[in-house]
């Protein structure tokens, strides 16, 4: 239960109910589809029903003849718009030209072919059906391993091997590690394609003001400023005449950390029709055309000593890229290999990534973006090694954790882990489940013929993206703090929250620093016409990087406030705190409102001081942060149906200092739900022809209220030395910890049947088949 503090006391560290909620719980928030403009048109997009086809011709006349249709545009009309951008670069990367509408060929089901603009959304949808496209279907390939096989259909005919890139990462001496190994375990582990599925799909409203030559695009995005730079380039609109607004955004999970064809397309339509236009993605479109996540096939080999000391890890990672590179597509698997060593000390790694084109929608960043895959593989391999050595999986982890005295720890992949006490969360999680007793219960259950499992994961993640040289687009963040003449405060942040609650947590930080009440602070974001340039919300970076920028802007402002306080108190010896400035000699005080009033009225000014109270800070982080934690899942598998019950779920996370425990709990719960979804029920299924079979919520199973177990949360707190707030980030932790904990648990449950590994999702059907095989063997 939240407290409802409004009077001033220390707010950081307190569970305060959110400032953004009143508009959300009353239905008065404004999402993109809630925007109405006079004369606004509606757009609907004709999409390819084929995964691969040549376009022999398009006849749009019947659509144009439908009353209410304003225009129909095809790839021929939009071919001069710049390509959909890829911000990632790798040596030798093959980058197909990604037109916003197909020209003469389509590459995946859902590929946009034409756009209808009409006075009404129903008419626009009707008119799409009246466009005749003469498709010449071609052979398609939807599976990355099949795409690599000789003779596979070429996704892009100019690159018949379907290979977009290969990428190597080596650290230490992998050959020596395997030479010295007393035991080697191998496994093929799949991190299946997932569909991010925010409850709000994408949507765009574009508004062209011809007199000003100015374009405003309202779009459901996580990165309004980066989107502005890139869409301005695509459309040839000068950046200062382009405004992007991310209004209320109904979830993103990485899928809106992107720049999409439709954003530029709506800009094109508005500029060509002279009228505002709205496009709202249907759920079917969301599933077929918004980026997917994961899509790895990993071949792993782990070398170890008989005592359990891990020596090294080899990985061959086959990444299903889809048909194009979206903003970060090729970079995602490189994040996986960076985090491949997990929390462990071993220094020898060898990774080879093969990026493969398929006739599917592109993959890109989905909650965790490379780190869930990395954690899943390392945590599965540790359990496989433990089984091989007949060691307790907890003991094996304790044996290999980086030690507390080894920080900052230089990893085999070139990272510097900031701070940690890796054993602490696992120890705490084991205590919470009463591990020894639980193993006794398991023994008992097995004697009764029940399939009970105990599984754990000890995850590490890389967050707070990040030092700019290590990111594609700058990794700093910005904040502006304005103290208004009345003494109330406006914060402008460059991050772009869409559910994470920074309107509250940032207000907590500002209120504490300035000694104000929470209601005295308003946090604004998401509008490039209001907010200074920023990077956005993704990679658990908002508080660690954006919050730190805010912290430093507040320090600048406090220094200036103090000068005005000294002037008003006629003293050099003053202290600022609790919303007042005190003269240390006389004890006289002036309030923040009085100082603010004086700064704007400017009847007199302190020496070398300008009027007004506003500070902007751009903060460049010196390193990433590295949160960590341990999750334990206790499961029981129904022998007759293959159904898995998660009987207990314990999450102990260390995200550094915590600003608002209630919000942190919400992030963990939601993260675990997405990791559990991957473990138990979610998979994007394409058939051999590239048709998405799981194309609606009926067929793509995201967790429901009944799917979720009660999640028991706890924390250890190891502040990050990277930023003065000591925070690490928590947005993705739950997702990263959950899938290996649950899979390890179910593998443990089925281990009496000889099961050593299970791929996800562990649907009842899949598990039932495994049990049947085990029973027969």
């Amino acid at each position, binding site marked *: 239960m*939240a407290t409802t503090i409004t009077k001033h006391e220390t707010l950081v560290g307190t569970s305060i109910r959110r400032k953004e909620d009143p508009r959300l719980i009353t239905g008065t928030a*404004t999402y993109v589809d809630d925007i109405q403009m006079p004369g606004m048109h509606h757009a609907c997009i004709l999409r390819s029903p084929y995964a691969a086809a040549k376009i022999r011709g398009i006849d749009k006349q019947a659509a144009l003849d439908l009353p209410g249709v304003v225009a129909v545009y095809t790839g021929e009309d939009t071919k001069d718009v710049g390509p959909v951008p890829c911000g990632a670069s790798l040596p030798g990367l093959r980058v197909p030209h990604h037109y916003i509408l197909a020209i003469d060929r389509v590459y995946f089901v859902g590929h946009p072919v034409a756009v209808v603009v009409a006075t009404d959304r129903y008419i626009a949808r009707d008119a799409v059906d009246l466009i005749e496209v003469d498709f010449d279907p071609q052979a398609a390939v939807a599976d990355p391993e099949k795409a690599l096989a000789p003779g596979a259909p070429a996704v892009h005919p100019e690159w018949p091997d379907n290979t977009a890139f290969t990428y190597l990462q080596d650290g230490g001496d992998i050959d020596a590690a395997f030479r010295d190994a007393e035991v080697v375990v191998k496994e093929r582990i799949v991190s299946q394609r997932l569909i991010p599925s925010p409850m709000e799909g994408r949507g765009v409203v574009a508004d062209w003001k011809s007199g000003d030559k100015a374009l405003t695009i309202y779009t459901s995005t996580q990165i309004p400023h980066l989107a502005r730079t890139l869409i301005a380039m695509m459309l040839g609109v000068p950046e200062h005449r382009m405004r992007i607004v991310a209004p209320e955004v109904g979830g993103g999970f990485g899928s809106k950390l992107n720049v999409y064809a439709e954003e530029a397309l709506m800009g094109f339509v508005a500029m060509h029709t002279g009228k505002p236009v709205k496009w709202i993605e249907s759920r079917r479109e969301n599933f077929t055309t918004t980026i997917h996540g994961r899509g790895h096939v990993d071949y792993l080999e782990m070398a170890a000593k008989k005592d359990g000391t891990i020596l090294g890890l080899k990985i061959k990672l086959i990444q299903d890229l889809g048909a194009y590179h979206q903003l970060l597509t090729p970079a995602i698997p490189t994040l996986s290999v960076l985090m491949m060593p997990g929390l462990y000390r071993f220094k020898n790694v060898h990774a080879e990534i093969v990026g493969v084109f398929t006739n599917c929608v592109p993959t890109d960043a989905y909650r965790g973006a490379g780190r869930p895959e990395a954690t899943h593989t390392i945590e599965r391999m540790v359990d496989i090694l433990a089984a091989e050595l007949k060691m307790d999986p907890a003991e094996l982890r304790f044996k290999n954790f980086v030690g507390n005295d080894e920080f900052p720890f230089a990893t085999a992949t070139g990272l510097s882990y900031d701070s940690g006490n890796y054993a602490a969360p696992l120890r705490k999680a084991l205590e919470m489940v009463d591990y020894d007793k639980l193993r006794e219960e398991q023994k008992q259950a097995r004697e009764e013929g029940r399939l009970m499992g105990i599984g754990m994961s000890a995850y590490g993640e890389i967050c707070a993206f990040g030092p700019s040289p290590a990111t594609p687009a700058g990794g700093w963040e910005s904040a502006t703090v304005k103290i208004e003449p009345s003494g109330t405060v406006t914060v402008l942040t460059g991050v772009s929250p869409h559910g994470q609650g920074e309107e509250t947590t940032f207000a907590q930080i500002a209120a504490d620093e300035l000694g104000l009440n929470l209601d005295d602070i308003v946090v604004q974001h998401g509008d490039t016409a209001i907010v200074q340039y920023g990077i956005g919300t993704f990679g658990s970076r908002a508080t660690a990087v954006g919050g730190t920028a805010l912290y430093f802007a507040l320090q600048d402002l406090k220094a200036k406030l103090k000068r005005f306080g000294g002037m008003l108190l006629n003293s050099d010896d003053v202290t600022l705190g609790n919303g007042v400035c005190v003269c240390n000699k006389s004890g006289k005080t002036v309030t923040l409102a009085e100082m603010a009033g004086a700064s704007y009225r400017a009847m007199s000014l302190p020496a070398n001081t300008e009027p007004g109270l506003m500070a902007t800070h751009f903060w460049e982080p010196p390193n990433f942060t590295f949160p960590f934690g341990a999750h334990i899942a206790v499961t029981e598998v129904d022998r007759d149906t293959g159904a898995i019950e998660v009987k207990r779920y314990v999450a102990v996370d260390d995200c550094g200092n915590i600003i608002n425990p*209630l919000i942190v709990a*919400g992030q963990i719960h939601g993260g675990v739900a997405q990791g559990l979804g991957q473990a138990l029920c979610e998979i994007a299924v394409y058939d051999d022809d590239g048709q998405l079979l799981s194309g609606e919520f009926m067929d793509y199973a*995201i967790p429901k209220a009944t799917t979720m177990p009660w999640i028991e949360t706890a924390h250890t707190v190891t502040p990050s030395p990277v930023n003065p707030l000591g925070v690490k980030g928590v947005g993705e932790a739950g997702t990263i910890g959950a899938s290996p904990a649950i899979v390890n648990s179910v593998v443990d449950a089925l281990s009496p049947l000889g099961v050593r590994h299970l791929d996800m999702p562990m649907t009842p059907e899949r598990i039932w088949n495994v049990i049947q095989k085990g029973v027969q063997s």
Partner: protein
Amino acid sequence: MKHQVSIKINGKHYSHEVEPRLLLIHYLREVVGLTGPHIGCETSICGACTVSVDGQAIKSCSMFAVQADGTEVVTIEGIAANGNLHPVQEAFWNEHGAQCGYCTPGMIMASKQLLERNPNPTEDEIRHGLEGNLCRCTGYQHIVNAVKAAAAKMGA
């Protein structure tokens, strides 16, 4: 061909000529201007569009406006009384039952119906009662807490 519909929405009478194929959710959002209910799937699975029609929580993306002719509709905008939040709204706020907020109006309407039918539900009953409403942000735990808290308050 258009049809006349008369619907009482949040206590006010509305009368419009509508196409027979116009979905109730589009009528509410675009004709009446009540954008609280959202569209999440258009296939009656996600529940973001949940409103009350004659006291029954329904998914308004799967009902035509003409089918609602003569009914009484309540949306998320209509459940606070005299400037006071409904106890379910208050509980969603206190318990952090909303993150991105997109599913929230439907989730609150479904929770309200659940408590009308079962004023003192168990955790299991809450989860089953909300099975028709999807949330991608919260993992449902704080929503379950919110419904429990609202039940306690409404029963008090």
